[in-house]
């Protein structure tokens, strides 16, 4: 076999080193490093009603599917007290609500969460008390049909508020809040964040993410294109204080938890999302005091913070929804945000703003279109095989041409640099090509690899496109690693299968002396076969046979 090394490490190094350099630059020059630093310029449109009915609509969960559709599921409690889970879809227009789960009788179906697996399957998890305690269940949707129900947790405690995210490695994460009773907890009530994962069709066991004596409630995770999983939640360290928002990041292991908000009231129901410009957004509900006194009035309003540097720093919270008055409070809560394919950030939430506070309905707020810088290597083309130094007898050049197509899927004309490397034990730097590329344009750039003296083997093509204006979270699609598939085959391998076998050598002996080139091929056998004319002298001679014999047994 030809020489091989494991190229994954090299690929990682090539990817990580620029990130590290960029991180250092960001830290050194926080105001200069990111030309895309326009997150603060994102403006939001006015709230719009989505679902208005006489019941209480709460806890919306939204996803953006791979086909561009939006799905939204939420909980409804009717005026008669029956809980249901409804969902709608958006493909330019919203569908009518469909009932996902309802009843029967005293059974409650609450707090849905949606996600799409990387194979396209949609999963909806929710909490229901059909066994006496609230446990988590889920269904799968393939091609519009829902599967049967699968139980996800079995506990005599109560599991609430499941939140699903799918990481770039295809792992499905489920976070939720588990409430149980214990004298060791605040007011005898434990509230902890749990999670479990689905990886390669195997569910992990339940893992208690928070284990301290605080109340940890209302998880709000997201997964970013760099492979990381982010988790926010509401935390309270005593019964006499409200909640603040904490967050942590999983990148192989969990980082230390950090506080994102600090309020004297209460911040709840956090929701994290990354927009198409690589900006991380945190939406949450904040309790706002409208009047003090014995029966002071407060309301929930939606706030947001954002980070344009993938969590290195966050802005101060900004109020998003308008409030009411002490005599007519308006609550807005339960944010669920998603980046739409229309370039807008969609924020769904529950509010009783309709009719001066007549019931809780679903509203949404969209951002204006978010522009970004985003380039990708959309394709790579190279010959299926190459003889070292080329084989002139059939017109093969010693130069292998490698075509890489760059596509600008962002919104600006950008300057890009494309670097390519061919590697096995020996690494060949193919150089760097710099160009300007307009929004929406695809550009094919060609690298020339001189294979003269190159050892037959399977080589790995690594290529990286760099756009200095691109946000870090958009660089996930900037590289390709075509591992071991660029084939430099040994001379004498006339059938180009990568190995000079006895069959190849036999052909040389059989055809010895055939020629000259240009003679027509009679039925059954060619008198001149160009792959055998290694020295390109017009016939199969002793030199050709000798080379083939010398390479006998060489395999890549």
């Amino acid at each position: 076999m030809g020489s091989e090394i494991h190229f994954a490490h090299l690929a990682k190094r090539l990817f990580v080193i620029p990130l590290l350099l960029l991180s250092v630059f960001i830290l050194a020059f926080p105001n200069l490093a990111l030309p895309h630093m326009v997150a603060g310029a994102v403006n939001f449109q006015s709230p719009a009603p989505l679902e208005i009915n006489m019941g209480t609509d709460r806890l919306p969960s939204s996803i953006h599917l791979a086909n561009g559709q939006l799905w939204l599921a939420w909980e409804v409690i009717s005026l008669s007290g029956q809980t249901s889970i409804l969902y709608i879809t958006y493909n330019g227009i919203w569908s009518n609500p469909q009932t996902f789960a309802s009843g029967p009788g005293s059974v409650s179906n609450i707090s849905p969460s949606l996600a799409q697996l990387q194979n396209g399957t949609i999963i909806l998890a929710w909490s229901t008390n059909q066994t006496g305690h609230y446990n988590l269940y889920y269904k799968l949707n393939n091609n519009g049909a829902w599967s049967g129900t699968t139980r996800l947790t079995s506990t005599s405690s109560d599991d609430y508020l499941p939140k699903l995210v799918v990481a770039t490695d295809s792992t499905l994460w489920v976070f939720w809040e588990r409430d149980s009773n214990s004298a060791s907890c605040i007011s005898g009530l434990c509230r902890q964040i749990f999670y479990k994962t689905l990886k390669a069709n195997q569910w992990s066991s339940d893992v208690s993410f928070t284990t301290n004596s605080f109340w940890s409630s209302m998880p709000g995770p997201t997964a970013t294109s760099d492979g990381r999983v982010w988790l926010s939640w509401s935390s309270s360290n005593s019964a006499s204080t409200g909640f603040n928002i904490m967050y942590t990041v999983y990148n192989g292991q969990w980082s230390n938890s950090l506080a994102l908000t600090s309020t004297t009231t209460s911040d709840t129901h956090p929701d994290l999302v990354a927009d198409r410009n690589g900006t991380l957004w945190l939406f949450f509900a904040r309790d706002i005091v409208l009047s003090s006194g014995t029966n002071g009035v407060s309301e929930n309003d939606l706030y947001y913070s954002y980070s344009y540097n993938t969590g290195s720093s966050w802005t101060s919270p900004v109020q998003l929804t308008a409030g009411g008055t002490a005599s007519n409070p308006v609550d807005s809560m339960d944010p669920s945000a998603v980046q739409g394919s229309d370039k807008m950030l969609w924020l769904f939430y529950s509010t009783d703003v309709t009719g001066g506070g007549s019931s809780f309905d679903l509203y949404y707020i969209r951002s204006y279109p978010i522009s970004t810088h985003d380039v990708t290597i959309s394709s790579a083309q190279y010959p299926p095989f190459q003889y070292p130094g080329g084989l002139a007898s059939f017109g093969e050049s010693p130069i292998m041409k490698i075509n890489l197509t760059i596509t600008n899927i962002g919104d600006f004309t950008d300057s890009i640099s494309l670097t390519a490397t061919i590697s096995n034990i020996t690494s060949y730097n193919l150089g760097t090509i710099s160009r300007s590329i307009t929004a929406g344009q695809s550009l094919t750039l060609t690298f020339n690899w001189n294979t003269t003296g190159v050892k037959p083997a399977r080589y790995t093509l690594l290529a990286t496109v760099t756009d200095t204006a691109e946000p870090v979270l958009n660089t996930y699609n900037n590289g390709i690693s075509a591992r071991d598939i660029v084939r430099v085959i040994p001379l004498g391998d006339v059938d180009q299968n990568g190995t000079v076998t006895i069959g190849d050598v036999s052909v040389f002996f059989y055809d010895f002396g055939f020629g000259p080139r240009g003679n027509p091929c009679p039925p059954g056998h060619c008198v001149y076969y160009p792959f055998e004319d290694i020295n390109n002298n017009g016939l199969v001679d002793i030199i050709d046979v000798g080379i083939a014999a010398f390479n006998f047994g060489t395999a890549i």
Partner: protein
Amino acid sequence: MTANATLAPGTYTITVTGSSGTLTHSVTVTVNVVAQAAPVFSAGKLHWTHHLSLAKSGGVQTFTAIVTNPATNDWYVQVHITGTFDTGTPFTADSPVTLVAAGTTLNIVFTASASSAVNFKVSFTGSLTYGPTASSLPFTSPVTKSGAFAVVP
């Protein structure tokens, strides 16, 4: 002419037939049946404790609904509170069925426990069902009232 209180609103044709011996005569009368005005929260008023102290109240929330009956007939009324805790679990409360005389306004007071929701909020919608008898409340008032309260230690 009287009609059952549950008669659906609409246009009805009544045929009155008189006869004497072999003489018969009929007259048709068109009657529009309109719905009696529904009881409503008076000026949207539904009172509750916005910060429910477990220490002071034991987690028992008291709702006071001010209900007006603008109709010309009496209605039996029940106030319903349906909503959710922050976890999404349902929160419900029902008042006793109460007679609200025609043209009057009445305070209806009732309670519900929210002791399990310390440091959480409860978001709810208040609604009214009503009917002609205490055991028959087939109608729902079109006017609802939403609100929220926090449960504090």
